[in-house]
Every structure is written in C-alpha cells, then in structure tokens.
C-alpha cells in the first residue's frame, strides 16, 4: 500500500506527457488487492496510465553466501499478533520456487520430500503441496539441479525455541549484527570516530564496512573471545606470503608474485579492518554487555520465577536500553517457564514507569507472542503457540553442557558460551535419526528413492527467523545441511522492533 502511494506520487510528479504509459513491476508479488485498489484509486485515473502491471517473483535474497532469506522479520509477529497466516503462504510459494529451481516443474522430475516440525512448519508443508497441485505447469526450462544438490527440505518453527534470539549472540558475525546491525547489502555502518579511535572528529560521520571479503568469511563464525586464534593464523599466512627473497627469484616467480601482490595487500588491509572491528566489538561486549550476559547465564542455570531479579530492576530504574531489558525479562520468563503473576505485574509496572505506556504495550505484545508468559496464566494475553518448556528441554537436549570450548567451531555450545540453542539441537537430532518420526509431506505422488539413501543435501527453512550465531553453529556442526534458508536473519532487537501494530 505504501508502495502504491509512492507509485501514484511518482506518476503525479514525473514531468512527463500524460500520454506516457507506465509498466509497473511489483516485487515479489502483485497482490490482488493492490491491483484492485490501483484500479479504484482516483476513479481509475492511475490505472489508465499503466500499460501493464506485472510481478517479478523475487523472494530469496542471499545473505552473505551462507543463507537465503526472505527478509521478512515481521513474520512471527504477524502470525501471533495479527493472526495473519498469509505470510505462511508466502513462505510456501517461495519454497516452491526453490523446489522448482532445483527440480524443475515437470512431473517426471525427481520428487521432493519435506519434513516439518512445529505448527507453522506443518502448515507451510501442507500449503506447499496444495500450491504445487493447483498451479498450472509453467515451463521452467533450466532447473539448477547440478548446482543445488538438495535431497530434502526440512521446515522448522523458530517458535519451538523463542529463547535463543533473546540471548546475546557471541560470535563475531552475530555481535556485529547485534551491535551495529548488518544492512541489506551485507555491510555495517560504524561511527568513524570510534573506528579510528580518535578523540575528536565528526561524531556523526559513519564508515561503511562491507562484510564480503575472504578474511571476514574466515573470522565471522568464531566466538568473539577466540577470534584472535583465527586472526593470527591469517596474519601468519600473510607473513608467509610476504617472505620472499628478491635476490634469488626468477622472472617467472616475479610475475607470479606481481600477480599475487594486490591480493596480499588487500588481505592485509582487510585483516586490519576486521581486527579493529573485532576490537571495538570486544570493548563493547566487555564494558557494556558483560553484566547482561552474566545475568542471562545465571537465569539459564537456575532461576526463580517467584521473585523479580534485582539486576533487571536496577536496569529498568536506570532506563537502560528498552530492548535489552525486555530481552532479559523474556529470558527470565522463558527460562523459568513463566513468571508468577505478581512478578510479571511488578515488571510491567516499573517498565511503564520508566519508559512510558508504549513500553508497556510492547510487553503486552511480547506476552501475546509468548516471549513473556504468566505462570498458570488465567487466559489473559495468552500466546496461541505452545510454550517452549525450557526446563524439560534443558535436560533432554543437554542444552547447558558442563564442558565446552569457545575456541572450537564444532562445539554446539560455543556460540553462546555454554548454551546450546534448542533449535540447533532439534535439527542435530533430526539429522542423526535421518528425520524419522518427523511429519513428512511428499510433493509428488511417489517417494524419492535417493532421499532415503543420502543423508546429505538437506535444506532447512526456519520460519520466524534465525540468528547469525545459530547459522554459524548449523554451518559448522551439521555438515549434512547444505542449504540454510529462513524467513529472516534476526537478532533479538530486530525481532522486538518488528513487532507489528494490530
């Protein structure tokens, strides 16, 4: 609708002959409603000016070479607060597009198996099947089967584990996102002053750093405390590259070196940039977030739902950033399986007093979304989604292992320093049992014979968003998952900021 306004404004303002007709493309969808309201708007004045209205079905946006995203961070809120299921349908359509890309649309192509876990996932799987059976057969000529070897698609709900996004991510990549926010083109904007470590300078100047180089890809999944390990390796490599004996070199060797030189220089430059970025993040984590992170850890280990946590209270009194406070309250609630009514009321009251009624609104919506729950709540502001049951899952899935190493990429508990995200654990378990027992949907009549045999080539789709730390864990710990897709890459703050209005 907003885009419609823009379009109409453009048509009004463009200094063009009124006879000029426009071709309009909507990405990714020309909604039926959009067309209709275009027709009706100003008695069809705009509709007359349009030569055609079409859509470019671009759903998937690549994220950093790791992940495909629908960039729809509102989905959880839309589903739980607005009850708007159409977003699930959009997921189904996008996934079908992915299937088409891999398999082509011909009925003779290889069938695709879909496993799903969670309410939304089951819905999406069902819709995928429906959409598939009803759409007419377009002739999609070239499936990229060779490029994307996908044997199955696994759908999973974010809301099986709403806790993890509420916690602070501790991988380099995750922290960059948490603190500065990674933009649409995989870049972060940091204050120039801070980056250069200068006392004076323009306090509003920003430096944009593109996170696309090779050095960055090597560093991004590491825990912030362990980043120096990998960085030193990179530095060593660079040094090795630079060591050459000019005297003894042949002309051929020279020419190789000259060709390599720009790459070496670039690497040097990039490692500097990222080391500085890491430093900044480290400083931020240690000085500002350390209390919250410690708090989170304590809440996960043991917590009492009967009492408000003094530290949270203090932060509220001190009017610390609202989102971080709300995230702590949410962690408290999720970890203890719901807050006692009086505690919840206390939190709500002090938040309202410190931040005003809009903050109270957000708490209520978080309640509606199930991020904050009332223990044995009397049905008021209840979330329709089943609760996560952290205490049980903690034991069954060993989410808080005694021993873990931040410096080991393959350790499931590394990204959150001792906490293993439930989502990753569920996926790991599914992968281990070859998804037996998961609700299974076949997109065509017969089974895929290859699917049973080959555990590799799994594509997962997380409905409701995935954090970058989880992304790192799935990448490093579950080699069978070859393609990660999600409705959006999120952080806790993004999730809270994208809570929608009624």
């Amino acid at each position, binding site marked *: *609708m*907003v885009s*419609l*306004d823009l379009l109409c404004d453009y048509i009004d303002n463009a200094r063009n002959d009124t006879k000029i007709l426009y071709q309009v493309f909507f990405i990714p969808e020309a*909604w*039926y*409603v959009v067309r*209709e*309201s275009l027709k009706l708007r100003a008695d069809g004045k705009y509709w007359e000016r349009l030569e055609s209205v079409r859509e470019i079905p671009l759903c998937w946006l690549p994220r950093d070479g790791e992940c495909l995203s629908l960039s729809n961070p509102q989905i959880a809120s839309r589903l739980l*607060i*607005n*009850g*708007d*299921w*159409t977003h699930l*349908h959009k997921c189904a359509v996008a996934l079908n597009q992915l299937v088409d890309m891999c398999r082509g649309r011909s009925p003779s192509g290889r069938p695709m198996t879909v496993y799903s876990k969670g309410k939304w996932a089951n*819905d999406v799987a*069902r*819709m995928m099947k*429906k*959409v598939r*059976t*009803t759409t007419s057969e377009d002739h999609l000529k070239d499936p990229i089967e060779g490029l994307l070897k996908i044997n199955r698609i696994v759908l999973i709900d974010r809301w099986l584990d709403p806790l993890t996004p509420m916690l602070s991510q501790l991988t380099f990549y995750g922290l960059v996102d948490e603190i500065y926010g990674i933009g649409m083109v995989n870049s972060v904007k940091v204050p120039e002053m801070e980056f250069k470590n200068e006392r004076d300078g323009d306090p509003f100047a920003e430096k944009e750093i593109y996170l696309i180089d090779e050095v960055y890809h090597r560093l991004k999944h590491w825990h912030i405390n362990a980043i120096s390990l990998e960085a030193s390796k990179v530095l060593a490599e660079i040094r090795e590259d630079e060591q050459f004996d000019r005297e003894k070199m042949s002309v051929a060797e020279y020419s190789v070196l000259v060709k390599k030189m720009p790459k070496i220089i670039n690497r040097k430059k990039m490692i500097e940039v990222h080391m500085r970025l890491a430093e900044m993040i*480290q*400083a931020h984590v*240690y*000085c500002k977030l*350390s*209390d919250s992170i*410690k708090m989170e850890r304590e809440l996960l280990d043991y917590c009492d739902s009967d009492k408000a946590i003094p530290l949270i209270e203090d932060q509220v*009194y*001190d*009017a610390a950033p609202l989102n971080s406070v709300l995230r702590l309250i949410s962690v408290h609630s999720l970890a203890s399986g719901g807050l006692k*009514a009086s505690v*919840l*009321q206390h939190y*709500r*009251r*002090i938040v*309202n*007093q*410190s*931040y*005003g*009624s*809009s903050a*109270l*609104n957000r708490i*209520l*919506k978080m309640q*509606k979304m199930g991020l904050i729950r009332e223990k044995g709540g*009397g049905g*008021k*502001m*209840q979330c329709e989604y089943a609760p996560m049951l952290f205490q049980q899952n903690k034991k069954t899935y060993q989410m808080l292992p005694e021993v873990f190493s931040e410096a080991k990429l393959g350790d499931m508990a590394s990204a959150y320093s001792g906490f293993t995200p439930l989502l990753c654990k569920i996926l790991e378990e599914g992968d281990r049992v070859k998804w037996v027992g998961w609700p299974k949907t076949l997109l065509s009549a017969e089974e895929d014979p290859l699917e049973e045999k080959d555990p590799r080539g799994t594509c997962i789709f997380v409905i409701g968003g995935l954090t970058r730390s989880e992304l790192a864990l799935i990448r490093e710990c579950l080699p069978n998952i070859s393609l990660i897709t999600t409705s959006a890459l999120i952080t806790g703050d993004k999730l809270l900021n994208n809570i929608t*209005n*009624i």
Partner: protein
Amino acid sequence: MRSSSRTTTPSEKKPRLDGEICLRPSSSVYLGDQKLFFTQEYINTCSLNLKFVVQFAACQFSGPIACAYSPCPNKWRVCIRTISGRMLKQDMAFDNAVFLDWTRAHCLVVLHKNGRAQVLSSLGEKISEVDFDTKMSDVHECRTFATSRGDSGIAVMDVDGQVSVVNSVSEPIIWHMRPPYTELPTAWTAFQPHSQLTHILLIFEAVFLMGCQGESLQVQNHASVWVDSTTRYVKCVVDDARSRIAMMTENGKIQIVSIDLSTCFCTVEIEDHDIGKCINFGWVGNSAVFVQMSPSLIVFVNVSARRKPGDEVQIYEKMTANAKISIENDGIRLFESTQVEFVEAASREKIAVLNRNMSEDGAHLYKAAQEMNQGTGHNSFAASTVIQDMYKAIDECISTACDMWQPEEQKLLLKAARFGMAYTNTTPDTTKLMKAIKEIRVLNELRMVRNGIPLTHRQFRMIGDTCVINRLIDMGSYSAAIKVAQWLGGENTENVDRVLLEWVRRSIGKVSKTGIKMDPLALKALDEKISAKLLQFPHVSMADAARQAIESKLPELARLFIQRETDDESHVAVLLQLNDVKSALKKAAASQRPQLIHQVVRHLMNSETRSNFELAISQIPLAQCLYQDLVRQEGETRGVSGRQMLALLEQASDFERQTLFHFDVAQTERNPDERLNALRRAKDAAKSMGDKAIEEILNDVSAFAPLQIQRGQADMSVRDTIIEMAHDTAKVALLKQQARLNDKQVLLWTIEGLAKKGKMEQLFDLAQKRSPIGYAPFVKACVRYKRMDEVKKYYAKANGYPDLVAANIAMKNYVEAAKLAYDRRDREVLHAIHMKSHDDPTQCPRVKQLLNSLDQN
C-alpha cells in the same frame, strides 16, 4: 480395371434403411484428354425415394443433403441426411417454400415464395432469417454463389425481374439490381470473381448484361466476338475456381468463356442430343461439363481448352435412375434410386499412375511394387529401371493413393511409394508420406456410413482440418470429431478441446431448452456422463463445463460439475459466478490461498452490505484475518484511524487485541488528550478481558496522566517527571503517591535529577541521611553529569564492600575495585571488573594480573 469380389459389410444381412458403403473398384472412361472415374460410394440407399423428391440440394464438399417432398401443394416436408443416408433431421414442414440450397458454411437455406429465407443448421435447427424484400410479390428463381470468404451468397429474382442479393448468408446485407427490360432473362447467374465485388450476369437471348454491386447493369459489347447472336443462350454456369463461365445455347452449342466475357476458350457443338432442353447443366472438374437430359440420362462433354475447333466432339453418355446431381470441385455426385456414385474428373497424377499403357514414372513404380508383392522380383526390377525421376514417381503414387476410394488400393499405392524410397540416393523425406497416411485414415473414417462424409482428398485439402472438424461438430458427430481431431492434431489438443466444449455446450443446452425442471437424479446422470467423458481428457477443466451450465441457466448442474473441479482457482471463480459466496469463501479458505480469498472478499464487498459480508467473513477465521489486513492497510494509506478495524475486533469480542489496538493508537497519537482517551479505552478493554493487573496499571496511568497534561509534561514517563522535579520534595512525594512508586525508585531518580540540575547542595543534604541504597548511585550520578569535584564527597561516604566496589567502578577506578574484590577472594566480581576494565587500557593489565593471581591460588 480388374474386378474383384464384392466386399460385404456385416450389416448386409439385416437390411437397414441406411445405405452401405461399397468398396467395388471404380470404373473409368476416357473423355478425350480427360479421364472420368466412376466410384460407387454407397449402395442400398433406397430410403431416399428420389422419385418423389421435388427439390434436392447437397452441401458442397460432401456435406449433408436435403430433400423436399411435397405431399400436398404449397407444402414441403424437408429432411436432412448424410450422403450415406443417415437421417439428421426428419420431416420439417415448410409452407410456400420454393427453393432449397446449402451454403458453403454448412447451412441450409429454405426460400419461401414471399422472399423470406430461413437459414437452418445441418441438424435442422433454425439459425437466422433473411428477408429479401417485403414487397416482393413472388420468387421466380434463385442462385447461390460462393464468395471469397468461404461463405455463400444468395441472389433471388422475383417475377418482375428484380434481383435481390446478399453477399453472405451469415451477415445478410441486402442490395438490389433491376434490369432495364420488363421481360425475364433467358439465363442468369450471380458470382463473385476472386477479390472483386459480386457480379450479376443477365442474358436476354443473346444480349449480355453484367453489373457489379453498386453499379448498374451494362451491355457487354466486347462479348460480341464470340456471341452467336442467332440463337438464345439458355444456361450459364460459373466454374468452381470462379474464373470461367460455361454457356449453353438453345441450338446445342456449349461455350466456355472467361469470367469477364472477353474471351472464348472453347466451343463445342453437340448434335446427338437436343441439349437445349436439358434439365441440368454444370461443370465436372476443370475441363468437362455434364448435361443432364432427363433423370435417366446424363451426357459428359469434354470442353478442354486444348481442343481445336473442328476436333471430334468427346462425349460420354451415362444411364442413370432418377438421378439428382450435386456438384463438387473435382467432380459430381449422382444420387440415384439405390446408390450414390461419384464421377471424378481425375487428377493428372491419377491418370498417369493408373494408366495401363505405362508411359509415366508413377505407373512404372506402381507396377514394380505390385510385381515385388507377387514375388516376381525380376519383373519388378525391370519395371523400376525404366523410372527416370524416382521422386516424381513417389509423389505421384502418394497423391494417387490419397485419391483412391478403396483401402486396398490405397495400401498398394502407399506401399509402392515406400518401395520407391529404397531406390532414392538421399535419405527419403517421409513427411509427405506420413501426412498422406494420416489424412487417408481420416478420410476413410469419414466415409464410413455412420459419418457419411465421402470427402475426396482434393476436397479435404480445399476445406482443411478445422473445417472438417467443425462440420462434424455441426452434425453432432462428436465422437468422430474427437477422433479426427486427435488424429490430425497429434500433440496439439486445441481442436479436441473445442469439440469437447461444444459437446458439453450442446448436451447442457439440450437439457436447458426442454425448460422443464430437471429432477436431481437426471441431473446427476448428466453430470456423471459429462464428467466421465471429460476425465478422459485431463487438460480440459470441469470449470468450463460448469460455466456452460451457468450460461444455460442450470445452476444445479454447474454445482455438480464444480464439485469435481480440482483447480481451486476456477472452482472459486465459478462459485462466485453462481453467486454462492458462502461456498466460495469456504473453498477459498480451504485452499489456503490468500489471492483467492481476497477475490472472494472483494466480491463480497462489492455485492453485499458491510454488515452482511462482515458477518459472512467472521465465520471463517482465515478470511477474517485477511480482511483485517485489508482494512489495516487501507487505514494506513487513507489516514483514517482504524475505526473499522476496531469494529471488527469488537464484533469478534477479541478483547486482547482490542486492548493492544488502543495501545497502538496511544503510541501513534500526538495529541495528549487523545492519547489519554486511547489508554482509557485500553483500560476498558482490559477490564472486559478480565485482566485485573493490566487494568490496575492502566488505572494508575490514567490517574497520573491528566496532571501530566496540566503540567505540559505529557510526553514524559514517570521517571523523567521525577528527575525533572527532583528539587521539589513536596511534589516528588505527591507524585510518588500518585504513581505508586517505591522508595528506591524515588531515591534513585531524585539523586539523578538533582545531579542533572546541578542542585548539589540539595543532593548533599540528601546524602546526610543514611542512604538505604548506598552511596554508589550518588557517585554514579555525579560522574554521569560530570560533577567531578563533588564525587569525592560521596565516595568518602561509601562503605560496605558492594557499595565501595560499585562506587569505584562508577569512578572508573577499576584497579581499586579489583583490589577490594581480590582481598575478598571474590572471583566473580573480580571477573566482572576485569571485563569492565577493558574501557581503560592503562588499568586493564593490572586488573588482569589480579585476576590471574586469584586464579592461581
């Protein structure tokens, strides 16, 4: 031709009224350079009773025939049959009809005495009516003529000699032409030369008048070079190519002239018969004419342009029994008492191949193949060596095969063509052969008695695939039409679809025309029948059938159809057409496709009142939320506050969302009073929801807010307000009471407010009393607002381990704080201090040292 034993058909034993197909070999006769083939197509066609037929018309291109019988004067009974004798329509009664003919578009025209023409379909269904002239007293004569558009025109001459013409029966626009003479012409015709306007030719004895549409009749003086002015011209017939006219004079002369009457190609004088008194006259192919002297005698005359004057007249007489004649482009068809016979002016290839004298390549190849078949290979070799151009021979064989009537002969000729391919040097191009086989298959099927369309290959080529299928549809032969469409179309199913759709339309139309209320059982049966058929063709959608049913005003049937439709989109569309919004909504919801639901919702919004459709929608949650989304989006763009949205929520008694809705309004609202109102409404909603706790908080808020508005601090939170008014102890106390704050909150915020405002004395006074929260907050506030000189005072007051550590951290004395923690062996606190000490690179290493040494102990 060798004669073979007669092929019998199974139906011979129990005689039927219909005819039988006859596969006897054709006989042939030479007529100068022409050769005529006589093929008996159907025999035992006794039911025609040609003796009593008063008017006979056959549709060109082997279409159906119409016979008129006259049981009493001025009354006609007309029946329509296929050429094989199958009845298509029986006993149609017409009063005062005078003329009967078929148009090329497969329609029967019945002209009445008063100048009114009825146009009927081949099944006798009335299509339209053409009224030539309301003042027309009596019709004298009538001619139909072919036009360039594939349709036929009619020219009607009344007894006054005025000619009324329509150029197309399907789009009748009448124009007139009046001759300058009062008497009637001795001969006349109407025709449309290629890409020209319609012409009328009137002959008054030996005076030729011609005029085209829009002009007056002119005497054609240039015709005098060939006109025999001593006699009267009694017949004139235009040939199929519309380029020549055959003229006949009273004294037995036949002249072939060009269409513009400028040249005469050929003149033949016949003395044996008094042809001036003939009853029918017309073309047989391109270079022969027939003259029907009586129902029992027909004379064929060669009128080839290659004839020189003075050459011997080439004629052939044929005896017939009550013959009626229909003229085709490649010959004529004779309908006799008991048989139908086709007289074909053979094509050049056919003459060449079937020539017993064997002067042509095609004939040699045919011979060679036959020899090969009989096992006399040496003869075969001998025959094949004579062939000069093998490609030509193959083509000739294929084309002759197409022109054959008997399947046996067709096979032999095709085999010969295949045999010839072995002798070619290049890889043979079989497309021609394949096409011929495909077409022969179709032609053989069409020739069956059940279809009764004995098309020749040349006729088939003229009218084309589509037209043949259309004719079958017109005649109601759907199964044959589908078969033919499948054979001809191959992968392309367009024609098949068309046939099916037409079939469905007709079946449904038949039911709806009866007008009686169908009982559900009969409808069910019809539905079963149609869907069973359609299911054999998976690409045809049931929705199309349903649409047909709707058009025929049979909603119940449409409903039955649509239940079988698997495509949700068309399903919903049809339901909407049926105006069954409820089912449409349900179906759309079940399909879980937002676009569809939107479509239905739109439909509802346009057709129903708001309350009605909101009620309908509220029963389906999926649609409900979509509708909400729609309302929300429209609200956003139009700037209308979401009153409608609220109404929806109220309707659904969704108090939780109502509460949130009011909160949202409060959040976006700029006007403080309005905001307060929104919060009050939120409170009410929370009350209805039954959540005491939220209601309580909101109660406080709404109690507090009016005063805030009075103070002009409406945008401030309680915390901000206290900080702002910290210096006013009385007010703070009041606020504390109003907002139900605890001591800690008040104290913390007061400290911060005093430090912020620089009321340092007041702050110090506050510090004189023992602070229940320690003195670290004082230190923190001073540091925050850069009152560095004041910090020491409060730091000195700090006592107790936590308070001291906090105060040190606030002052960024990390080392000091770390030492305190170290002394207490408090690893956890020390760790936290270490983390924080990263802020100051000078202190960090020292803190780390302390941490390490603690770890070592």
